[in-house]
């Protein structure tokens, strides 16, 4: 366990032709254990923030710290190792590997971590059972519904039991029933982890323990939803 995720004066600027675009500016926040939703309109910097927190991209200002580790100072491969051991991801597009079956997708991070084949399969099937898609374990992603794919993706994110979970619009492409199932599983998994949820969906965000509002690349408001949620 590396401790809390901390962003300090985090910023990202890039050039678009002659113009400089500020995607994120002066973002400082320590993400505690539990769920934190990041909301805001399109172009507010939500995805940029998640890219920087996960080490997919490097900031132009400030930094990201996992406990004492400065993520932004690590090499590309070192950041990949940190992601493998300490982070799980759930994307809007599910992003399952199309040539692998459901259980093989879940086992993929375990394979990267060097677990023996039998242990990988046992763990993968166990997780698929927990997210309720065990009977679809041997199907390719193309044979699964959106909700099933997202549950497989959630099982994959939890494969190595990471302390940090990132979710980017995890219910954006799902119908109402699947949306509820995935949201329940996600917040359940987030109870004992640092869950960072990026979403447009204010109803979903309201289920988080705290909400951060972004606008124009800046953190404009923090809120702890009331008991009415």
């Amino acid at each position: 366990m590396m401790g809390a995720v901390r962003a300090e004066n985090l910023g990202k600027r890039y050039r678009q032709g002659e113009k400089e675009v500020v995607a994120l500016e002066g973002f400082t926040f320590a993400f505690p254990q539990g769920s934190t939703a990041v909301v805001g309109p399109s172009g507010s910097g939500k995805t940029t923030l998640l890219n920087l927190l996960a080490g997919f991209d490097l900031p132009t200002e400030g930094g990201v710290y996992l406990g004492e580790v400065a993520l932004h100072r690590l090499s590309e491969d070192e950041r990949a190792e940190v992601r493998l051991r300490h982070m799980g991801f759930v994307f809007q597009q599910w992003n399952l590997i199309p040539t692998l079956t459901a259980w093989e997708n879940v086992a993929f991070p375990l394979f990267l971590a060097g677990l023996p084949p039998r242990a990988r399969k046992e763990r993968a099937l166990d997780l698929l059972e927990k997210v309720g898609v065990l009977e679809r374990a041997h199907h390719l992603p193309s044979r699964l519904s959106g909700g099933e794919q997202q549950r497989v993706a959630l099982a994959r994110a939890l494969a190595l039991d990471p302390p940090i979970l990132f979710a980017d619009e995890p219910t954006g492409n799902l119908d109402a029933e699947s949306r509820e199932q995935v949201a329940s599983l996600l917040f359940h998994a987030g109870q004992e982890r640092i869950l960072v949820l990026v979403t447009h969906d204010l109803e979903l965000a309201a289920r988080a323990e705290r909400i951060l509002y972004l606008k124009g690349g800046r953190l404009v408001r923090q809120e702890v939803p009331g008991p009415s949620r």
Partner: protein
Amino acid sequence: MELFHLVLRNLLARPVRSFLTLLGVVIATTSMVLFLSFGEGLRRSLAQELSRVGPAIQIVPEGMEGLGFSGYPEITPEEYRRAVAAGKDLGVKRITPTLFLVRGGFDPQTSFFFQGLPEGVAPDLLYPGIKPQAGRLLPSEEGAIVGAKVAKRSQLALGNPLRLSPRVELRVEGILEESGGLADNLIFVPLKPLQEVLGTENYTALLVALNPGQKAEEVARALEARLPGLKAQTTGDVMRFAERALRISDLVRFGISLVALVVGGLLVANTVMMSVYERTREFGVMRALGAKRGFIFRLVVLEALLLASFGGLLGLALGSAVSQAINLYTLGQVGLALSAVTFRLSLFALLVALGLGLSAGLLPAYHASRIPVVEALGRV
């Protein structure tokens, strides 16, 4: 699920493209194996033929290479006598003068190769082990002993005439059993009629047999020192000359097959590059989940290597099968197995195929491993 498993899954997910690429590599490897197998076949045949030739040394005029089947006879009777004299104190057992004459066209199928032998010398002195299947082994003054394949091809039987010129005609007195060697394609006749046809008393070559214990190389060098204008070549010399010629021919044939190989390599590179472009997001997901750059690099290179090595193995198998078919044909036609897929050729073909795969996979692999995660995931 291992790295190999991942690669295989991806190739099988696009079966038509993988199959067509594989076919390209198979054709490229097959053509290379076949082209090079002719050199190997000639090497093997030559070594077998030379091992069947009795004399350890052939004396030929300087400047002549090989066995001297072609060319005008230049060794004079005087030079022959000097050679006999020189050989007496060098451990030479016997020196047999001989003369070659080719009659017919350029095509070995329609040509007749005559070898003249001195009076009283039977062909088994030069080609040990050969036996007559009909008639005799030692030709009379106007007789000819015909090799098995020539007799079969030209439907020659005992008593048939062989006209060498309007004035010189011989009769078939013996037909040899098939030996699988050079003698199958020769007609052995006395020296005199051949010399009469050519209007000379000269010889093409002097064939030197040594007493037991003599070293061919040493005797050849001593003979050369005593016989100016003549060259004494051992079987090893002939092989070395042939090897030089075959190497040049190998290079030419490899150059031709290189075209097919380059096309095969481009096919693999194209397939792998296409696959990389199509799977950019997939690689992004892998990187996001914790795969390092080296993992992606190995994944792509292995895909190219797998295509190339499997294609190489199939190409080698197909090349060997076609080589066997060619040999069946040429054995029937000229009595020689012209093609040989040897161990070193097989190894070379597989290494070339693997090299092809590696070089075709390196650039796409480098590209795939360098795509920024945010771009690969479409999260810019």
